[in-house]
């Protein structure tokens, strides 16, 4: 009788997976998360629709009304949206500006008008107004409107900048939103499924079923099966949430950026798996030191701190994802799953940084599996008082 190790790990993993899939956290949690995402996308869509640039309202008095056509055409030509109207007199126009129903009042004479504004005058409006005045003066000086227009048309200065600023990324805000969302989801999932592993380890210890289990299977098989089963449940839940998000995003056309594509979702799943393996293995090791469910959170706290730190660091990485600090912290194994995902979502992570982060975390996971496996094997059958970490390591 060989009773292959692989099939035992499979049996243990399958039990854990079935248990999680049947649990409330999975069913209700997945649904709640999808509903939250749908609400978030709806809000973003509504808010985005109303934030389209609105026209600048410019009022002309009877004395400056002759400037109106020229101003409108120059402003439109410069790409500025304006809506032009006539006001009864300067006093009424000033009152409208004060009340906020008018942005600019053009009063005075056509050759020397005064623009009345609440605080500042839009530079495009000012240029359009200046050109209109120039046109009026030249016409008054005897040039035909056609020759004036011909002379003024095409007056354009080419700009040659020596240190050009990078072009503004029109998708920047969408990418940042996606990055923050990805960070939140990864943090939540790693924390949740990691704690499932810790609780499962202690449950088996507290109910003493380990003594029966370890009479027939090895500690490493039990631990591996548990981590694989719970991890698969996490991957499945994240995949469902991600698929729902992709469908919602495509249906609403809210953002069409690489951060929210099927390919990038696969990358985030890989980061979940790496982060989960890192934290779940460490959790399993420390959880095996205690015998009661009440002690789980205090035992896992020293490790949970790193996960919280990773989440807190998101607020440092998001404003400056390409910076040195962001680059360094996103490569460190405890933070990489969340922070490198953020920098990949914003498009600031380079290939070598991602590669280095993956190598480091894989090496760390291998080390943790050895370390936590040793602690687990040595303390899983030890009941009562909390086992000391060093004793567990030495196998005393």
């Amino acid at each position, binding site marked *: *009788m*060989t*009773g292959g190790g692989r099939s*035992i790990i499979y*049996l*243990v993993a399958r*039990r854990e997976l079935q*248990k999680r899939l049947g649990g409330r956290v999975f069913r209700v949690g997945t649904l709640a998360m999808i509903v939250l995402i749908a609400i978030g996308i709806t809000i973003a869509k509504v808010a985005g629709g109303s934030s389209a640039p609105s026209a600048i309202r410019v009022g002309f008095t009877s004395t400056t009304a002759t400037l109106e056509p020229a101003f409108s055409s120059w402003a439109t030509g410069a790409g500025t949206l304006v809506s032009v109207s006539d006001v009864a007199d300067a006093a009424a126009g000033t009152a409208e500006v004060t009340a906020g129903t008018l942005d600019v009042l053009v009063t005075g004479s056509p050759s020397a008008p005064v623009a009345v504004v609440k605080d500042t005058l839009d530079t495009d409006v000012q240029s359009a107004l200046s050109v209109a005045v120039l046109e009026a003066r030249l016409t008054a000086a005897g040039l035909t409107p056609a020759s004036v227009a011909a002379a003024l048309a095409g007056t354009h200065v080419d700009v040659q900048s020596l240190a050009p600023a990078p072009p503004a990324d029109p998708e920047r805000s969408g990418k940042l939103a996606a990055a923050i969302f990805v960070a939140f989801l990864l943090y939540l999932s790693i924390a949740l499924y990691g704690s499932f592993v810790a609780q499962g380890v202690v*449950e088996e210890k507290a*109910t*003493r*079923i*380990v*003594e*029966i*289990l*370890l*009479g*027939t*299977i*090895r500690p490493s098989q039990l631990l591996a099966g548990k981590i694989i089963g719970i991890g698969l449940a996490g991957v499945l839940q994240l995949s469902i949430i991600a698929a729902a998000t992709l469908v919602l995003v495509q249906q609403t056309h809210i953002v069409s950026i690489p951060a929210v594509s099927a390919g990038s979702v696969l990358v985030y799943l890989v980061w979940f798996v790496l982060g989960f393996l890192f934290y779940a293995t460490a959790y399993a090791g420390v959880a095996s030191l205690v015998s009661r469910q009440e002690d789980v959170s205090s035992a896992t706290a020293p490790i949970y701190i790193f996960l919280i730190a990773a989440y807190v660091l998101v607020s440092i990485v998001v404003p400056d994802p390409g910076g040195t600090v962001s680059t360094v912290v996103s490569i460190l194994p405890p933070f990489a799953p969340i922070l490198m995902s953020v920098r990949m979502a914003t498009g600031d992570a380079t290939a070598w940084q991602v590669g280095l982060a993956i190598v480091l975390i894989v090496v760390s996971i291998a080390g943790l599996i050895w370390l936590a496996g040793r602690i687990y*094997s040595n303390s899983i*059958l030890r*009941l009562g008082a909390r086992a000391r970490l060093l004793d567990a390591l030495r196998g005393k």
Partner: protein
Amino acid sequence: MELGRGAVALATDPADDAAVDSLTLQGLTKRYGDVVALDGLDLEVPGGELFGFVGRNGAGKTTAMRIILGVLAADAGEVRFGGTPLTFEARRRIGYLPEERGLYPKMRLADQLAYLAQLHGMAPTAARVAAATWLERFGLAARARDDLQGLSLGNQQRVQLAAALVFGPNLLVLDEPFSGLDPVAVDVMSAVLREQADAGLPVIFSSHELELVERLCDRVAIIDRGRVVAHGTVAELRAGAPERRWVGAPNAPVHWGEGIPGTHLISRENGRMLFEIDPGADDQALLQAALATGPVREFHRVEPSLGEIFRTVLEEDGT
């Protein structure tokens, strides 16, 4: 967790010519710090035998059982089954009822038993059938789809025993299988253990209920401070114990009975006296002396109970 580190294979190893399916413990030693839990424990349980393991709390019974199961490593000594050291694979065929009961509280009985059976190497379908069979046997078929945590403690205990039996073990190791059971459950449990032994398995169990052990077991070992201090059939243990006689001599004077050669007066109640006969002494001398006081209404031999043997043995062991 490998056993037998530091064990010396002796040329005169009794396991060499033992029955193929007998369990042998040889020189098991285990210390917890300064506490000696096992001090060179030797034991042999042939297949087909129901073997009782008795001893005070802390005598080393549970430690010995955990070492047999491999959930605890011995400092020295060896566990053999069928003549060869117990390997991990061989241990998977041991049905084990641990001292501290434990199963998954939130798992259905049928699922739980089938899962454990599969961990022990059973095919999925066979495991389902075996789980249903054992639940039926223990009168729990109607609860098969219930979670364990909803059951009474006595019923949980039955499920625990079913968990030890469900995969068809080659050897049964049961730590206090009778504790917490009602009389009906005790009968069911006794019948199951007997049946398993009759099927050829070595069945080793510990218990503090000595009357039960006396009634049920083929052989008994009394262990104290990590060593076997007496073992054999109950009759053999009795043979080693001093003979006792009740003497009913109503006319005997108050202080009669003391100082009769070859005997000790143990107790006196309502004109009846209990004597212990020294090994090799003649009980007829006691009868003659009794007749000398007048009529003798009663003169009979007392079989010491296992409980009395147990106490005697421990007294002789110096505690």
